[in-house]
C-alpha cells in the first residue's frame, strides 16, 4: 500500500514539475535575452506564464481538496460501519443499515469527484477568460 501511495505522489510530483518547467520557460528571460522586460512580447509571455502557474496551483489545490474530502467521507462512514459491526441489533436491521450506508458512501465519493471536477473546470474557465481579456487589451492598445 505504501509503495503505491509513494508511486502516486511521485507521479504527481513529476506532473507538477513538468508543468512548472513549461511555465518558467515562458517567463521573460531578462535584459540579456530576446524578450526585454516591459516590451509587448515580454508582457505577452508573462500573462501566459502567469495563467499556466495559476492553472498549476488550481490543479494542485483541487487534488488536495479531493483527497481531503474523500478522507472525510471515509472517516464518517468508517465510524458508522464499525458501530454497526459491534452493535447488538438484530441481523436484518443491521444489514439494512449497512447496505444503506454503503450506498450513501459510494454516492458521496462520486458526488465529491464530480464536484471537484466541476470546480476545477470552473477555475480553469476563469483563468482562460482572464488570459483572453489580457490578450484583447493588448490588441486594443496596439491599435491605438
Amino acid at each position: 500500500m505504501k509503495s503505491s501511495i509513494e508511486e502516486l505522489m511521485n507521479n504527481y510530483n513529476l506532473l507538477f514539475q513538468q508543468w512548472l518547467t513549461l511555465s518558467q520557460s515562458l517567463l521573460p528571460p531578462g535584459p540579456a535575452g530576446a524578450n526585454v522586460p516591459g516590451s509587448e512580447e515580454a508582457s505577452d509571455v508573462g500573462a501566459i506564464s502567469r495563467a499556466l502557474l495559476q492553472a498549476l496551483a488550481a490543479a494542485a489545490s483541487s487534488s488536495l481538496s479531493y483527497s481531503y474530502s474523500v478522507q472525510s467521507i471515509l472517516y464518517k462512514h468508517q465510524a458508522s460501519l464499525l458501530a454497526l459491526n459491534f452493535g447488538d441489533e438484530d441481523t436484518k436491521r443491521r444489514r439494512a443499515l449497512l447496505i444503506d450506508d454503503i450506498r450513501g458512501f459510494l454516492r458521496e465519493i462520486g458526488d465529491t469527484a464530480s464536484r471537484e471536477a466541476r470546480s476545477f473546470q470552473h477555475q480553469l474557465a476563469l483563468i482562460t477568460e482572464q488570459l483572453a481579456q489580457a490578450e484583447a487589451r493588448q490588441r486594443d492598445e496596439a491599435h491605438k
Partner: protein
Amino acid sequence: MNLSFVDNLNFRREVSLVETQLAEWVESCDKEMIPELRWQFISGSKYFRPLTIFSTYRSLIPELPIPDWLIRCAVVIELFHNMTLVIDDILDKSPERRGRATLHQKFGELDALMASGYMVAEGYRMLGTDVQAIELFSELMKRLGVAECLQWRLRRQVLGVEDWRHIAAEDTGSMFEICACLADRSGRLRTFGGLLGLLYHGCDDVGDVRGSAALGGGGVEDLRDGILTLPAALAIRDPEIGSLFSKESPSLEDLQHLSKAFQMQLPEAERYLDQVVSQARKEAELFANDPEPLYALIAETRKLSGG
C-alpha cells in the same frame, strides 16, 4: 404573498411583479377557465421557486436588477408548479390545500385536469422565443412525470434513504434544478438547485410528520399511501416497522404505530437535512460569484421542517 420569506430574501418588488403578471394572465384567459384559474391562483403561494430563480441570478450578477425575461420565467415556473399541485391533489384525493378546497374538490376532476393542461400550454406560449427555457421546461415536465410514476410504483416497499434521495432529487429536486438553470444558463448552479430541492422535499417530509403547518400540507396521505418519506425511510430499517409499512391495507392502529415510529426518527432526519445544507452551501461557495443570497435561501428553506 408570504412577506416574511420574501422580505428576508429581499425580493418584494420582484415577487409583486410575479403576482401582478399572474393575476393579469388569469383575467386574460378564456372565460370558461377563469373561475378555476382564479381559485387556483388566489394568493397563498410561498413563491419559493421564483425566489430560487431570483436568488440564483443575484448570486451570479449582484450588481444588476432582476431582468424582465427572468420575471417571465418565474411566472411560468409558478404555472408549472401549480399544474403539479393540481395533479398531486387529484392523486392524493386531498380535499384541502392551504386551508381551502382543492381545485378538483371545488370544480370536479375534469375541470381540474383541463386547467392543469391549460397552465402548461400557456406557460410554453409565454416563453416565446426563449429556446433554452423551453428546453429546460421540457426537461422538467419529463422528469416530473417519471418521478411521479416511480414514487407511486415504489410505495409500500421497504427501501432505503438512498432510494428516498433518488426519488426526492427527481421530484422536487428537478424543479429547483430547473429554477437555478433558468437564472444561470451556464448550468454551473444546477447541482445547487438540485440540493436545495432535496432539502425542500426533506423539510416537507419532516414538517408533515411534525404536524407543521408551515408547508400547507399534512402527512396523512403519504402515511396512508405508503409513500417513502425521509422519516419513513429511516424508520423502516426496523423490520417490524418495515412490515407494517408494506401492508396493503394497514389498520388505523398500524398507521398510528407507523406515525409514532416516524416521529421517533425526526432527530436523525434533521441531522440528515443538516448534511444536505452543508452540501448545498459548498456548491454555492464554489460556483456563485456572491454566495450570500443562496446561503439566505438555504436558511429559509431549512426553517420549513419546523424543527
